[in-house]
């Protein structure tokens, strides 16, 4: 006779008891607080300290934000409206936010930088997310030329003729590649492009402009400023310094003594000099060395210096990634019979760059922040504009409102970059924890 027999077991439950709610102290906010804020004596003290800190330092700020004045013509008027209460004078932002974003860019032409911002998002998307249609890469390839034309304006043929140089060089390279060996096709392509840029481009562009005039009103570099200049310098610097950084990193661990020497020399020299020094060289000393009448655009000079600076740092970050790869990976690539560049492209770089992502993004964020140093060479970035705005008699003595706005803009950009890099790291994870 089994224990489960109907005669021995009086009652068999046929349905499950519905789960009852956990006790009050084990749910919701109470549980969360118990676990996270008051789990030990130490945490209790820390929590109380934090509350005290918030109460004393952040709560007093609330009226400052809430009472803020958004419509006034000067700081004095703000103070009259506030009439003794604490409150921010955000009117300076309502009046000047366009200037903080676009600098002195002509207001009628604002659609150009705005289009550039949008195009930048479209151009960056296929590089950042690999599940987007590859055709978007066309927008990316055109972007550098489109950006220059949109921002600085002028004849479209000027920009197109520069772009044509790349096309001609590529065609020449392809053509020579069929007949010749080794590095020669590359040199042929380069020579064709340089000849085009130096001798033929100018007359051809001028001729086309006189036959078919089409262009945007020119905007000088002095009129750029604010967030726009940070973005132009930051994006150009980031886009240009990554490839240069990779080449420098490879050069530094190369077996060829000359290449190695040049790369080590360059990296150590650039890393040994503060960026502000390089910027001063770009803005002041170059004028002494260049022949008179030859002037490089100031923004171009800054982009070159920022790129050189950032690429030296990136090279070291990437070298760290290369050093972290097990030797077996290099040997495996050799064993497969891959050439040096094939091995780099297919095996070494994908892994090394993946390891270096946090460092690379760190450098990029640093570069983006460093763009505000251009203030010291007479380009009005957002901080420079804040100073200039304060020099108006209407706004002398206004600090926090401007700095909070600028901080917020930088934070959004840098937080975005950091979030993207974390997403990328998760996506590229190949280990299985």
């Amino acid at each position, binding site marked *: 006779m089994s224990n489960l027999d109907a005669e021995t077991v009086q009652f068999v439950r046929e349905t499950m008891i519905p789960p009852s709610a956990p006790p009050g102290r084990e749910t919701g906010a109470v549980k969360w607080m118990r676990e996270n804020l008051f789990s030990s004596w130490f945490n209790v003290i820390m929590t109380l300290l934090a509350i005290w800190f918030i109460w004393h330092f952040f709560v007093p700020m609330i009226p400052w934000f809430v009472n803020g004045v958004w419509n006034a013509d*000067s*700081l*004095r008027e703000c*103070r009259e409206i506030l009439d003794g209460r604490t409150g921010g004078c955000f009117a300076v932002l309502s*009046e*000047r936010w366009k*200037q903080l974003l676009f*600098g*002195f860019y002509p*207001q009628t032409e604002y659609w150009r930088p705005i289009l550039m911002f949008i195009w930048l998002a479209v151009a960056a998307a296929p590089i950042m997310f690999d599940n987007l249609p590859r055709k978007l890469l066309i927008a990316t390839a055109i972007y550098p030329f489109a950006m220059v034309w949109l921002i600085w304006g002028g004849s479209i043929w000027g920009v197109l003729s520069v772009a044509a140089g790349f096309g001609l060089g590529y065609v020449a390279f392809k053509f020579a590649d069929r007949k010749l060996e080794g590095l020669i096709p590359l040199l042929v392509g380069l020579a064709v492009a340089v000849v085009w840029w130096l001798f033929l481009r100018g007359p051809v562009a001028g001729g086309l402009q006189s036959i078919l005039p089409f262009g945007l009103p020119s905007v*000088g570099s*002095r*009129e750029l400023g604010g967030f726009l200049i940070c973005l132009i310098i930051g994006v150009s610097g980031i886009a240009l310094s990554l490839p240069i950084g990779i080449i420098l990193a490879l050069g530094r661990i190369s077996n060829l003594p000359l290449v190695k020497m040049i790369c080590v020399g360059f990296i150590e020299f650039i890393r040994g000099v503060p960026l502000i020094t390089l910027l*001063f060289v770009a*803005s*002041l000393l170059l*004028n*002494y*060395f*260049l*022949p*008179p*009448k030859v002037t490089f655009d100031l923004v171009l000079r800054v982009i070159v210096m920022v790129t050189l600076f950032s690429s030296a740092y990136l090279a070291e970050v990437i070298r760290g990634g290369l050093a972290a790869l097990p030797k077996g990976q290099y040997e495996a690539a050799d064993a497969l019979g891959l050439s040096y560049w094939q091995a780099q492209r297919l095996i070494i770089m994908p892994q090394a760059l993946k390891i270096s992502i946090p460092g690379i993004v760190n450098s990029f964020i640093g570069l983006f922040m460093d763009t505000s140093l251009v203030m*010291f*060479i*007479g380009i*009005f970035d957002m901080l*420079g504009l804040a*100073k*200039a*705005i*304060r*020099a*108006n*008699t*209407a706004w*002398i*003595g206004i*600090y926090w409102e401007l700095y909070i706005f600028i901080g917020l803009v930088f934070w959004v950009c840098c937080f975005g970059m950091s979030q993207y890099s974390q997403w990328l790291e998760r996506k590229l994870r190949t280990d299985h924890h």
Partner: protein
Amino acid sequence: MNKSVFLGALTVAALSAGAAAAATLDDVKAAGVLKCGVNPGTPGFAAPDANGVYQGFDVDICRAVAAAVFGDATKVEYVPLDSSQRFTSLSTGEIDLLARNTTWTFVRDVDLKNEFVGVNYYDGQGFIVPKALGVSSAKELDGATVCIETGTTTELNLADYFRANSMSYQAVPVATFEEAQSQFLAGACDVYTTDASALAAARSAFATPSDYVVLPEIISKEPLGPLVRQDDGAWGDVARWTLNAMIAAEELGITSANVGEMAAGTDNPEINRMLGVEGGLGDMIGLPNDWVVQILTQVGNYGESFERNVGEDTPIGLSRGLNAQWKDGGLLYAPPFR
């Protein structure tokens, strides 16, 4: 070997830079725009407004020169310059004229090879104190704590002044004009000292300006003026006589309002010579004959520019003081237009 080639190239470049810079007026005319170095932001003297257009007392010098050369005061490219870059930018030809509240000193004039073309603002170092301190003269400041920008001439002037009056002070070093203001307002120091024009600007920004007083003593000479490169006297003349025209116009009572009327001819021969009715002064200086008319119509005379930018009706509220006409007890004294 390589090094000497490089140095040789540098020398050639430097020499040709010097040679090419000589005919500045022609270069400016050819470029169609005057490149003028200005302060990126000094209240009342130079600052871009909401539309990005520079305004200010120093900026008016740039506009006046552009009006004289082109007949159009807007044909100026403003180059904002830090105090450390200003002389280099001028000597390399990046700018044609520097109007950036620059004190005229021996070394800057002689050793740095500049040519100061005049003084458009006579400044000097002053003191500001809270009214509650109950001080009415700088001589009563013995033992005070003083907010002072480090590494400036004001720091040295302060030390000299206190030593000369056998007083002692305790310095609270600050880095910038802004830091100085906030330290002073927070009560970290009893006194803040810098150029009197900057003190007035700072005071105008305080929440309660009437609680602070600027002491009457001015302890240093700071003649601020526009300057050009030393190698081109003709261009220096253009800048010098533009400034003189503004000053003389005020003395002679020519304003932007009545210049049109006076340009038709008056009984005063000097006015007639200035406004190009007689004498052909414009030809001599290489400018159109109506150059002074253009300056006065578009920019105004010295007094108008002063009142518009820094005068008593503006928030900065500077009184003319030393910057009054010589007839009114000031130092402005334009040589005759003859």
